[in-house]
């Protein structure tokens, strides 16, 4: 019986490999451990080695072809042995573990696709890197490994680049190297920078958003005069006990509006829609080489001060890459704010499987008609992106109207 040679996961994030070159040909004798082919993974060119002795009796994958991990690329057997139906009857790719339906109680399930979940279970890291990460509370999954096969090693967790004069004393808690996405200019015409794990995840997840998800967008103009007054009063009240930002007010208002419009607080799950009873708001945070969406859980039940403190803590952790998986997964709806960059309005990309996201612009004074006069008011543009498979136009519009009302009259949040 011939032994199947599978495309192996040669790096922790590898889902498919490009067969660069067969180093053995059909008919060549092979021994366990010998290199059969060179395979380009998502990180590097690696060697695919034989797991059995014998003869390479059949090559299924051609040079240059890309093969999913787990598929058969060749067969090793006795000389002359025939492979049954070996043409290219490669078995199906391994099934991603189905996302189980969980009772509402407890932590929400992780909404990452199966492949990512499988990666998450196994992080390659050196014992030293594990120890440093544990001490510093760094999530190794968010760190790009530069060791063999994408293994996370000490230098990946160090702030100071290797070879630089070290600090007088070792930092008590080393942080992951903040990587600038753009490298220093080399002499070449261009510089290729391998995708970091976080950027790969962004690429993978967002490509499952705007392409496959039928988006539509709703924009509304919100008067923020009263919210501004309310925020001023609240902050005065809080004193040095904390601070409430406009974003916190938006998070709270979105959460409350969702409790009134459950149709928007939902996940699209291929063969079913999951309407959430809990409200967990994802808050997009820009980090050094990408973005991540930490989650304010049960935002509808929390006070503005609580939301403010939690959002700031999560943003801080996100920037130092210390978020734990349960802190950035499980949102039921998201908020993205680019107001601080003087963006008046924009559309945000839905974070699947969520069905909606609200994009928050900056609060700007605008001339608006008030009866027969023109007055200057502080205004805010909100744009909601909706997954049309879950939310219809009118449904989204009703939610947005409630949100607008709550922001324009913060007392409505008490209703």
């Amino acid at each position, binding site marked *: 019986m011939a032994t199947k040679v599978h495309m192996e996961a040669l790096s922790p994030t590898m889902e498919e490999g490009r067969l660069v070159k067969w180093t053995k040909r059909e008919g060549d004798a092979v021994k366990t451990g010998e290199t059969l082919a060179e395979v380009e993974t998502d990180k*590097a*060119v690696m060697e695919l080695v034989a797991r059995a002795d014998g003869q390479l009796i059949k090559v299924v994958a051609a040079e240059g072809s890309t093969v999913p991990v787990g598929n058969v690329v060749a067969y090793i057997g006795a000389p002359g042995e025939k492979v049954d139906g070996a043409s290219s009857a490669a078995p199906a790719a391994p099934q991603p573990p189905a996302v189980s339906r969980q009772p509402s109680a407890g932590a929400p399930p992780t909404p990452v696709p199966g492949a990512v979940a499988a990666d998450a279970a196994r992080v390659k890291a*050196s*014992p*030293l890197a594990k120890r440093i990460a544990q*001490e510093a509370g760094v999530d190794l999954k968010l760190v790009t490994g530069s060791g063999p096969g994408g293994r996370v090693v*000490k230098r990946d967790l160090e702030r100071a680049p290797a070879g630089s004069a070290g600090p007088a004393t*070792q930092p008590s808690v080393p942080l992951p190297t903040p990587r600038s996405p753009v490298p220093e200019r080399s002499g070449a015409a261009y510089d290729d920078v391998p995708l970091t794990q976080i950027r790969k995840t962004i690429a993978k997840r967002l490509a499952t958003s705007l392409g496959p998800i039928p988006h539509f967008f709703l924009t509304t103009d919100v008067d923020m005069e009263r919210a501004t007054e309310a925020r001023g009063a609240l902050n005065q009240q809080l004193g040095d006990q904390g601070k409430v930002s406009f974003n916190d007010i938006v998070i709270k208002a979105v959460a409350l509006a969702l409790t009134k419009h459950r149709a928007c607080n939902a996940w699209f799950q291929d063969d079913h829609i999951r309407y959430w009873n809990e409200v967990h708001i994802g808050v997009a945070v820009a980090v050094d080489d990408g973005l991540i969406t930490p989650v304010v859980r049960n935002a509808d039940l929390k006070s503005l001060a609580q939301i403010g403190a939690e959002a700031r803590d999560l943003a801080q952790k996100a920037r130092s890459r210390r978020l734990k998986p349960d802190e950035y997964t499980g949102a039921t709806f998201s908020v993205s704010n680019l107001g601080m960059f003087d963006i008046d309005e924009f559309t945000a990309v839905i974070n699947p499987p969520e069905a909606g996201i609200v994009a928050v612009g900056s609060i700007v004074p605008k001339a608006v008609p008030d009866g027969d006069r023109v007055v200057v008011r502080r205004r805010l543009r909100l744009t909601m992106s909706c997954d049309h498979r879950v939310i219809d136009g009118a449904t989204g519009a009703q939610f947005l109207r409630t949100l607008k009302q709550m922001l324009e009259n913060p007392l409505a949040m008490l209703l």
Partner: protein
Amino acid sequence: MLRPYTINPGLPVANQFDVVILGGGPAGYIAAIRAAQLGLATAVVEKEKLGGVCVNIGCIPTKALLHSAYIASLLKESKDFGVEASGVKTDYGVAMKRSRRVSDQNSKGVEFLMKKHKVTVVKGTGVLQPGRKVKVGADVYEAKKAVLVATGSRVKGIPQIGLEINKSTVISSDDALLLEQVPASLAIVGAGAVGMEFADIFHAFGVKITLIEALPRILPLEDAEASDALAKSYKKRGIEVIAGAKVTKAAVGKDKVTLDVEAGGEKKKVEVVAVLMAAGRAVNTEDIGLKECGIQLTDRGFIKVDKNLQTTAPGYYAIGDVAGPPMLAHKGFREGACVAELVAGQKPHPIRYDNVPSVTYCHPEVASIGLTEDQCKEKKLDYVAGRFPFSANGRARGTGETEGFVKILRDKKYGEILGAHIVGGHASEIIHELAVARENEYTVEEVELAIHAHPTMSEAVAEAALDSLGRVLHI
């Protein structure tokens, strides 16, 4: 040599290769094998024997002689082991001839490897030319992908103080390896690995040795405890060791040399039959066409390279001793393999220059990796030192090799192995457990958790790791 007709431009030209390597020493021949493995047409240009200094006048013959020395000293104390050897005579000429045979076997081995991998070996002196070419005599060899400069290094004298190598009374290690008989007395200038090893060899063959080192300690690059242990061991054997010494003057006569030596404020005259210069090496960068190709040197005279070992001239790489310290064969091996992979379009793993083991094969052997304790202090690292003496190791007691110790320096917080130092029998072999550990970022705990066979010298490594954790068992 084939003279190709370039009638059909589509056919490969006989003097055209993917890679041309100047120098067939450790860096060069490994680069050639790896390049050939990766399907590149490869040529090596070598003016002398394949294998370079290492195989012919370095690592390999000295190890042969050191074993002769070991046998001589073993026989001296064999009575204690119940084996009485009387009438023991030593003959350096015989030992030397054996060492030459060992070298020749190794050089032939490299020749065989070149044949096996279909690497073209060009005998002759090569000179680099612009356009990725190497000229050997009247022939020009062109490299389509890369030229690798692996011209190595050579011994140097100190002409400034009158110690120019003259091959009779002032000799280099090259000459020492070919002596038919030993001088009655020998001063060795420089107590690095080379000086230490020759002191060991010649002492065992009955030569009166004076070992002179300019820096405050012999084996100055090693951990101070290792240096001190060796100084003590050598003095006990009757080797005179003068460290922190300056040779102010040398009077080289026909059959004797008188050195004026200043050490610790005292002046001393050392009168010997010959002086062995073991104070450093010079890289072979002259007359190989570097300037013509736009290849620059560093302030210290090495070839300037980037992180991919590419020189300042694109398409020209430098590997081995010429590319910079440490000037060790195994560092050259790795650079050769790495550049071959790079040229073949692979992405080799970056070389960890902080994880190159250093070994001196004198008796007892000295092996180390990573930082010394002084370096830890300089860097203000928070470290803990763990030690275990071979005198407490069962295997070492059995073989009578109780000299020396294992010392591990670990980071206090995470247990990272910052450095490891071994003095003792087989230290050169034992060190690799720690090299693997460091390469894979194992901490002292992983080293200790690995079960070590009993009784072995290697148990001392696990015990030193335990000692650094405050849990040593056998002391």
